[in-house]
């Protein structure tokens, strides 16, 4: 992508959408298992990876995580999100090249599972308690299910938004 202003505006738009979705998800009450959540903002991350490329998607993800940390006011949660987000993004780099337009949901599932592994790694460091790993299988299940949901949402979004994005960067 060459045009600086268009690129900046598009990335900002994606960040705003991700942040809006994140704030809405804050209203959904958490359940009694640490780390289990829908991760709706992942829809934007996955869609962005396909629409504007992994580097811009990474920038959107980082900005969203930092702003979300300020919006939710939980400083510790920032570290979990950063670790989860970084792992999630790293899996996206190779995945983007080997998936077709009908397999975008796969990236979301793998990203969600990677995100949860990153979170549990931070929890292990923070609590210095190996027993945290008892939650790993549950977090894998929740990662796959949430990833499927957000993945198909992202796949449908990419289908609709691709002509628009192509028009902008024509």
């Amino acid at each position: 992508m060459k045009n600086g202003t268009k690129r900046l505006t598009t990335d900002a738009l994606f960040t705003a959408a991700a942040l809006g979705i994140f704030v809405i998800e804050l209203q959904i009450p958490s359940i009694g298992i640490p780390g289990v959540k829908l991760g709706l903002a992942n829809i934007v991350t996955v869609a962005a990876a396909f629409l504007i490329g992994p580097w811009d998607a990474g920038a959107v993800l980082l900005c969203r995580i930092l702003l979300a940390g300020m919006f939710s006011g939980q400083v510790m949660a920032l570290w979990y999100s950063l670790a989860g987000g970084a792992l999630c993004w790293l899996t996206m780099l190779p995945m983007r090249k080997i998936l077709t337009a009908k397999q975008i949901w796969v990236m979301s599932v793998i990203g969600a599972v990677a995100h949860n592994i990153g979170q549990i790694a931070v929890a292990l460091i923070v609590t210095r308690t190996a027993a945290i790993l008892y939650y790993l299988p549950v977090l894998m299940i929740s990662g796959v299910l949430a990833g499927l949901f957000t993945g198909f949402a992202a796949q449908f979004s990419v289908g609709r938004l691709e002509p628009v994005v192509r028009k902008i960067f024509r």
Partner: protein
Amino acid sequence: MMKTKTWAALVGGFLLLSVIAALIVYLRPAPGTVANIYRDGEPLCSVDLSLVTEPYEFTLTDGRGSNVIRAEPGRIAVVDADCPDRICVKSGWHSDSAAPIVCLPHRLVIRIEKNAAAGSEAVPDAVSQ
């Protein structure tokens, strides 16, 4: 390019393995009846749930905040906490599960184990409210 069916099979297989692993973890009974409470991975105090006759509560506080813990005959729970997510409260009663109660914001972990962890203090009834 891999076929979509292949991806679906891989994801399905991983999901199945996770479900089996989760069942093994959750159906596995706790090795004992002693609830050990850890903060930052260090033993803080312990309660032998098999010796509890009258329910009582105690509060554990440090710089990050406090958790109100309730011990009843054979089971333990965090009944109140001032952490932001209150996941420890929502995880409810634990009696014979090997999975711990976790309060990540306060770095508190409650595990049910065979013996009291070395260096932990017994919870005196005096701190009950």
